[in-house]
């Protein structure tokens, strides 16, 4: 029974985990790209990694916390501009190949010895090197606090303050995205998603709108990278294609082109992922299945299930949990 409670507790914890918030944030950005504008960004992890580096390196250079956040946003913006300028006029799948490649280039440069002085090479940046300025912003002080079964320290990496800050930022960005996507500006984006030539024929500068969406979504992705780095460290290899694909899964699970889809998707995804892994581990430890499926296989089976979930989701419920079947974001042509 204790075991069962522990599993439930861990699952519950995932709903409000800072990492869940980070993925939600990245998925909000991706939703702006894909859900609203139809841009196939396959390199969201690249935006996140750049955001994390921007924040971490700026902090280590002695810049105050809010400025470091701005640096992260600027990094995402510049990356989006560089990617968008040449590719937004090409066919959609070219953007996919360019973004996935560019994200990999960022990772390889980050882990290479070339810029090791700043990026820390393959082992990345240690959390303690850049977290102090964030912890200093905490109004909660020291000590621990329990809320129901969840108990964390007030200030620190895996703390209440990290959670409050991350989810507060997500709420703020969500409000902003909600406002802009229900505006005439958001309507133009949806028009572009449907048929950019039609929108062009009505006198709208499609290129400019696509660029705005790419930059905004990319900057939000970079912010997601900062949130991801706050409770952990900045490790380039942890932020590669698998992360991008997880963000896609999160967005599609919640429902593309919906406001709360990314947040709900992230919560459901990570809670289910945790439940599955802890559950399997418990089963493997306590029953005869453990002889067949060892604890170390749990991660692998979990990963396989994520892949299969993504496939089934896209095939059978492409509109996700919250989406409207008639307004799903996949283009019919």
């Amino acid at each position, binding site marked *: 029974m204790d075991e069962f409670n522990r599993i439930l507790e861990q699952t519950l914890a995932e709903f409000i985990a800072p990492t869940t918030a980070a993925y939600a944030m990245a998925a909000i950005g991706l939703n702006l790209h894909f859900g609203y504008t139809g841009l196939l960004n396959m390199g969201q992890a690249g935006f996140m990694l750049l955001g994390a580096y921007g924040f971490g390196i700026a902090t280590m250079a002695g810049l105050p916390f809010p400025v470091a956040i701005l640096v992260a946003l600027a990094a995402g913006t510049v990356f989006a501009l560089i990617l968008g300028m040449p590719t937004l006029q090409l066919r*959609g799948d070219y953007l996919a*190949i360019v973004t996935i490649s560019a994200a990999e280039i960022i990772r*390889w440069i980050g882990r290479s*010895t070339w810029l090791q002085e700043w990026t820390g090479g393959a082992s990345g940046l240690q959390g303690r090197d850049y977290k102090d300025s964030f912890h200093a912003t905490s109004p909660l002080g020291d000590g621990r606090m329990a809320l129901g079964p969840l108990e964390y320290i007030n200030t620190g990496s895996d703390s209440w303050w990290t959670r409050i800050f991350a989810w507060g930022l997500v709420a703020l960005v969500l409000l902003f995205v909600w406002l802009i996507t229900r505006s005439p500006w958001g309507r133009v984006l949806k028009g572009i998603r449907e048929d950019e030539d039609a929108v062009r024929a009505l006198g709208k500068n499609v290129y400019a709108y696509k660029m705005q969406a790419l930059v905004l979504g990319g900057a939000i992705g970079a912010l997601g990278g900062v949130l991801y780095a706050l409770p952990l460290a900045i490790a380039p290899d942890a932020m590669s294609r698998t992360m991008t694909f997880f963000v896609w899964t999160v967005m599609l699970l919640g429902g593309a082109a919906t406001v709360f889809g990314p947040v709900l998707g992230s919560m459901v995804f990570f809670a289910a992922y945790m439940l599955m892994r802890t559950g399997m581990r418990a089963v493997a430890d306590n029953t005869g299945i453990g002889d067949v499926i060892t604890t170390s296989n749990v991660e692998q089976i979990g990963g396989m299930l*994520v892949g299969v979930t993504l496939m*089934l989701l896209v095939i059978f419920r492409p509109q996700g949990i919250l989406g409207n079947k008639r307004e799903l974001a996949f283009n019919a042509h």
Partner: protein
Amino acid sequence: MTADRPTRATVLRRTAAALAIALAPLAVATPLATAATGTGTSTGVATTTATGVPTTTTSDVATDCKPDDTTACVAAFVLTDENERIPDVAVTITGPDGFSAAFTTSSEVQAVAVPTSGQYTATIDPTTLPADQPLPEGAPAELEVTAQTGGVARAAFRVGADAAAPPAQSETSSAPADDGQEAATDAGDGVGAAPEGDASERSFSWGQVWQQIGSGLRFGLLLALASIGLNLIFGTTGLSNFAHGEQFALGGALGYLTINTMGMSIWLGGLLTIAVCALTGLAQDAGIWRPLRRRGTPIMQMMIVSIGLSIALQFFIQFLIGGGTERILTSNPRPWTLLGITLSAASWISMGVAVVCMVAVAWFLTRTRIGRATRAVSDNPALAAATGIDPDKIVRIVWVVATGFAALAGLMWGISFGAVNWQLGVQLLLLMFAAVTLGGLGTAFGALVGSILIGLVVELSNLFIQSDLRYASALVILILVLLFRPQGILGRRERIG
């Protein structure tokens, strides 16, 4: 219908972006020149320290390698935070073609001769470190270095409680410990930089370029064998199959299981691997892709389905062979020298098989009825269907052929390069995309040309940039091609309007 052809302004924008991207690798050379000299330590006279060897496949070696025009050396040493060498640490050097050598460190630098240029991995056994000098938390116990003829590639490990804090991060207490890589790759990467330091370590020879062209051709041919399938699938169905990299890795993984673990002969194991993988293609088409085509699923949706499949397969491969790097063949490779290029016998045979397979594909596509039908489906599926060709049948054949060749390529890759791991597919997929885009998406023979070019770029790029950025260089080229010639080298610009 619309032609988003570049106006003068967009050309300018593209050029600016391209320059920004292109400058990145160029800039690499600059910090290198300084990095290389700073960390270079004297080679000294090596004492031979033959030791007990941990694995049966590893040979005792002489550790007094001296680089010359035909010899490449890999050195490994373990440094304390006071830059003193720690003796008696067990080191294993593994590399392409199944090369493996083990020795223990001494107070001098130990260098072993390696058969070919290429990537080598130096691994230390942390248990042999002195108790007061542990490997810092998070620091790798293995380093990858690039060996070049005429140079010594050094792998420097840093240990100790305050290990290896590089000057810039001296306030940290457990900084990453792989800064040895800076020194490690100096032999190759220093070429093109100012000729400082030990001349014998940074000599540039045309023989070395020739050797790397050979490696590039090997890379390119195997890549081509894998990408032909990707291109055929794209041509006939329009799908950019993100799971194709895993099909490649699956070939290597099953090869490892059948040949190494189960002990089958290489031919039996190889055939079985290819058959099983081709069956996965058949099953995939029947179970996933054909039903989706029937439902008229948008291609973008199918692409994301293939991403899901790629994630699932990737973890499945990890499930099969674990998270480490495995060798398919356990015997030491025999080097063969042809036209002045030294590669392992297995590599030469793999290249030969790849060439034969590609000739067969060419013959199939141009001379057989089904092959011509395949090209017809690529050109215009509706028209092909109207002329009595069954596109479903063609696509099924394409899936079988594509997955079969991917498996063969993955298997031969594992044998030639000496190692398979679960990330192989992820690594190769983008290079395959680069190759087919370079050659022209969907064009029948574009994949070959593009692959050879990518192979050469990857293998030759470490003459100019750091070896750990060599895959990045291929992707930079991919992006440049997309910007300036989106239809690829062999592709035709589509008629617009």
